[in-house]
């Protein structure tokens, strides 16, 4: 019954006016940051860090946490409306969400994303409170070998989420992997494919490539002759703002499944949260009676990944709260905020700082509530934005993207690179290559290579570790069967095609 006492204590801390205000500011800033293309959570939290100097530590962390999960809500908005994923986790949402928007169903897509996120956030918060400490073991059970196998599984997800040719999807993943190799090598520090450009020394930024192949490429494509017709159609087609009963019924199971998947994957500090949304999407596509709807505006394709990424955003706090080890860059900043206040988080942070830990957990629930209250009414405004004539919309998007990319590193070269990737994206569209697998390859590439090399260094070059470690073996088995499931029907249909052709 400790839990209830702890939670009650947490709510007592979180419900003080100042902390409520901090939570609200965090949620608002987070939404804003999520909506603006290119502006990342890392940059914003870094910028706001000095402000937290003057705040009490609990309030400061509640605000920073609010920005972190608030950005997950906001990120889906830009993905759905203008097909620009601001973070790796919203790439999947863009696939079906933007298709829904094109069919005039931006309202339901946005609303279901908010509802799914809210539900997932609530469940994940309870999970942190109840099982945070025991779940920590999972984070520690994942060594380099396990992460490598998880990443392999993640890449298979990318194949599954492609709607066209499997061969092209795999080629795109490998292209993404190659792009991710640019920059300095983790083990030797050698500069790889960077052509002595200092801005490339640390590799291509995710935002740079995503803005290019999604954002700029989409704009250029929309400016093509003959594209005006389609755009006008979209504006006429806008129907209801809120999801229908059928939408809600269709989305309930995906939201539940997405929440479970996201909660589990979010605990893994080395990139688990990134693949949560991909995993959820893949699961839905595999379970669906008619998988061909995916990629063409299926509401499940929005509900599941959005729930998964928000659940993962919450449970990724577990390693921080129980071990004191930040699992990602944003959390590292929060640790920075704590150290500035003289609290260095460690395994005993729960016992030593109950105010902080339980206050933060309680505030996450409150924050999620605030976010859904903020986001549902905003749906109307966002949808109205789609009625702005495209001739005014596209230069604005260009400017917002350019400022966003520039602000990540204050580097003009990044903006030029995003432009180059815009042309690459335009070329991809013209040849029917899909950008989503490319981005996934790019995100997972470094994680996969690093963990592979770590695992091999530790095992002294013995490749069998991936199969002798049970967790890793299970993950690889899942990956192999998933690949078979995806490739077999394609082969069969190819064969049928050959047969029918020869008959003619």
């Amino acid at each position, binding site marked *: 019954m400790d839990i209830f006492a702890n939670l009650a204590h947490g709510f007592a801390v979180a419900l003080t006016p100042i902390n409520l205000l901090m939570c609200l500011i965090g949620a608002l800033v987070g939404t804003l940051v999520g909506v603006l293309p290119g502006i990342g959570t890392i940059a914003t939290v870094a910028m706001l860090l000095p402000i937290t*100097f003057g705040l009490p530590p609990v309030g400061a962390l509640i605000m920073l946490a609010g920005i972190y999960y608030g950005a997950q809500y906001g990120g889906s908005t830009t993905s759905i409306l203008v097909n620009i994923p601001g973070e790796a986790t919203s790439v999947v949402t863009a696939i079906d969400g933007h298709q829904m928007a094109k069919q005039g169903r931006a309202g339901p897509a946005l609303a279901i994303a908010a509802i799914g996120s809210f539900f997932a956030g609530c469940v994940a918060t309870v999970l942190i409170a109840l099982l945070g400490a025991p779940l920590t073991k999972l*984070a520690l059970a994942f060594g*380099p070998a396990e992460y490598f196998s998880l990443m392999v599984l993640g890449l298979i997800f990318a194949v599954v989420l492609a709607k066209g040719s499997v061969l092209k999807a795999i080629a795109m993943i490998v292209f993404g992997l190659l792009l991710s190799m640019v920059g*300095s090598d983790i083990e030797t*520090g050698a500069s790889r494919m960077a052509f002595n450009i200092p801005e490339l020394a640390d590799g291509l930024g995710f935002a740079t490539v995503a803005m290019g192949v999604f954002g700029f490429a989409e704009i250029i494509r929309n400016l093509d002759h003959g594209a005006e017709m389609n755009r006008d159609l979209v504006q006429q087609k806008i129907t209801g703002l809120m999801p229908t009963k059928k939408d809600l019924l269709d989305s309930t199971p995906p939201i539940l499944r997405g929440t479970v998947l996201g909660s589990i994957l979010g605990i893994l*500090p080395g990139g688990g949260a990134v693949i949560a949304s991909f995993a959820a999407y893949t699961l839905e596509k595999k379970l669906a009676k008619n998988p061909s709807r995916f990629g063409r505006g299926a509401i499940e394709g929005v509900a599941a990944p959005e729930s998964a990424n928000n659940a993962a955003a919450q449970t990724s706090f577990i390693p921080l709260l129980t071990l004191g080890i930040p699992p990602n860059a944003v959390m590292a900043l929060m640790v920075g905020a704590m*150290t500035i206040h003289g609290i260095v988080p460690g395994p005993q*942070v729960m016992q030593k700082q109950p105010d902080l830990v339980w206050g933060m957990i309680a505030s996450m629930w409150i924050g999620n509530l605030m976010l859904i209250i903020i986001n549902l009414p905003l749906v109307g405004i966002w949808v109205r934005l789609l009625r702005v004539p495209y001739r005014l919309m596209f230069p604005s998007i260009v400017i917002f993207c350019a400022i966003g990319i520039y602000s990540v590193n204050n580097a003009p070269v990044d903006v030029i690179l995003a432009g180059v990737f815009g042309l690459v994206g335009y070329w991809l569209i013209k040849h029917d290559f899909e950008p989503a697998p490319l981005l996934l390859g790019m995100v997972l590439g470094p994680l996969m290579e*690093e963990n592979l090399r770590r695992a091999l260094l530790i095992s002294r070059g013995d490749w069998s570790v991936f199969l002798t470690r049970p967790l890793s073996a299970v993950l690889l088995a899942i990956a192999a069967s998933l690949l078979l499931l995806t490739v077999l029907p394609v082969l069969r249909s190819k064969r049928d095609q050959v047969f029918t052709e020869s008959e003619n």
Partner: protein
Amino acid sequence: MTFIRALTSACAAALASLCAFVAPAEAQTYPTRSITMIVPFAAGGPTDVVARIVTGHMAQTLGQSIIIENVVGAGGTTATTRAARAANDGYALITGHMGTHAASVPLYPKLAYHPEKDFEPIALLAGTPILILARKDFPPKDLKEFVAYVKANAEKVNAAHAGVGSVSHVSCELLHSILDIKPVGVPFNGTGPAMNALVAGQVDYMCDQIVNAVPQINAGTIKAYAIATPERNPSLPNVPTTAEAGLPKFQAQAWNAMFAPKGTSPAILASLNAAASKALDDETVKKRLLELGSVIPGPAERTPEALATLVKNEIAKWTPVLKPAT
């Protein structure tokens, strides 16, 4: 409340910048506008925290805000290159550390700057002791046993580090060169993941800065063999120094210091040095830095001359250790 304050300050800033726009700066004494402090690492890291604590106080002394700009990349050398090329008017400074202003010289053969030739030293800010850490079930019980064990099993042990050029990498290379062994170094992407692997027992040992390690050591999730400073640290009174534990040659500190681009006027350097020194004498600053496990330099160590000597000595110290590694 705070939001309103933020809003008013924003308006004030807007007004101020508008004024600056309308009436070009008149001849005033330095500084007349806000100063940018480049920190070559991510916000929240040890260097960043030190820089923020010290500049927070310096801004009061100088009467202008100091904006921290975190520029990450290539072990801090991206940011340091940028700082070296910045205008030498005193409005762009850098908080460097042992990696960017010493170890980088042998580590990066194509380094676009030289710590001695392209920078004016301002002041040493803090030293962060380095510890020898190991997973909690690593067999050796103390440093002597550790040395014997690692030497005997150099083929088997794994040393974790937070990436090439990081403090943990560079300092473990020093340890290895003293012990004359070459164990496998397992690279991680930052101290967080490396510490995670150490806590989980996936790697055997690492050398790391005191900041991240103290809570883990106190909780018993990892163990510390020794601290590589001449004196014990108040936040870890039970951890012996390397000299006490039998490895006096291993001395390493991750120091943080403030630099300006070459050619900055001596008057500006002097006022910055005075402000930094004043900050280090401030009780709150002192307390915060000590909480981090930092060692605050004495008045004699804070002078620009002392920093210049330190940089010179550190480059000389790291070059033989790191040269063969790359």
